């Protein structure tokens, strides 16, 4: 078995991990990463921690909600929309 190219390959994986998780890497690069990760527990653990981070970010929504638009604000928006439709119709 070839000696484990830990530092060099791990750094490469570390650099490309988001592109890999986003499926934005060419197939050859993916295969290289997978070939390395399969035999490298630190990279597996790190990749898993980043994947979970991404998953949390995607599911995260602030608990804060906007105050529902008041009547005046809604009227202002409706009027702007009506003006836009009227101007477009007049062209």
């Amino acid at each position, binding site marked *: 078995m070839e*000696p*484990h190219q*830990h*530092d060099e390959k*791990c*750094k490469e994986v*570390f*650099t490309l*991990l*988001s*592109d890999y*998780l*986003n*499926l*934005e890497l060419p197939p050859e690069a993916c295969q290289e990463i*997978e070939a390395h*990760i*399969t035999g*490298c*527990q*630190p990279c*597996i*653990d*790190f*990749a*898993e*921690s*980043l*994947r*979970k*981070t*991404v*998953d*949390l*970010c*995607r*599911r*995260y*929504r*602030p*608990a*804060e*909600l*906007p*105050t529902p*638009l008041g009547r005046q*604000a*809604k009227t*202002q*928006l*409706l009027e*702007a*929309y009506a*003006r*836009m*439709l009227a*101007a*477009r119709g007049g062209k």
Partner: protein
Amino acid sequence: MTQDQAHYNRKEKWQKRNWALQRDIEIELARQLIAGEPAAFDRFVEYFHAKIFHYSWLMCGQREDAEEVAQETLLKVFENTEQLREPQKIRSWVFRIAKNACLMKRRKSIFAPSRELSLDEFMPAKNRDGDQVRIEIADWSLLPEGEVMRSEMRELLERAIRELPETYRAVILLRDMEELSTQETAQILEVSDDVVKTRLHRARLAIRQKLDQYLRGHGVEGEAKQHGTAPAR
């Protein structure tokens, strides 16, 4: 391919299908808005108001600014709907307007200072134990998959996002929270695709590091563990 990665790929594909469905709804909404259909106005406000508010709140840092940005953005959308020639670009068009409105509201004092994040900051510490190289990392397997986000985790994540320099924060909000594509995010922020990819990776790493510190300090249930089986060279 590892089992975890195969699982992740399936999940990623499912998320993409879900995302495509959501996009279809938005495109139909945009078509109706452009066509001037009466019901479109209310549906559009209902759909986008909270989305714009959340982005603005995390970008501006203050609730009142975010409320104003959300209203200003909606106003610009309704004033300029005729400029939206391609309904499929509705989400990126709306967020581009929101991004510009946030810039106008910017109050530098409440932002993390603008700085570059370097990859080296996020490399996990490594140590040697006999012929093993280990990295210091929390036990992330204790964080259940798809768990309803606990308030503590939500607050931590929120703080980690807020502490990111603005340029990185904008990317992670658009790419991971709003699930815009790399190209769409690049167009909104007026940077190249490569810049988006670089900033996204570093933003994720910065957040990962904060979560890792938390998991090691408090743990979901357990303690930090050291991983690694790679023999030292």
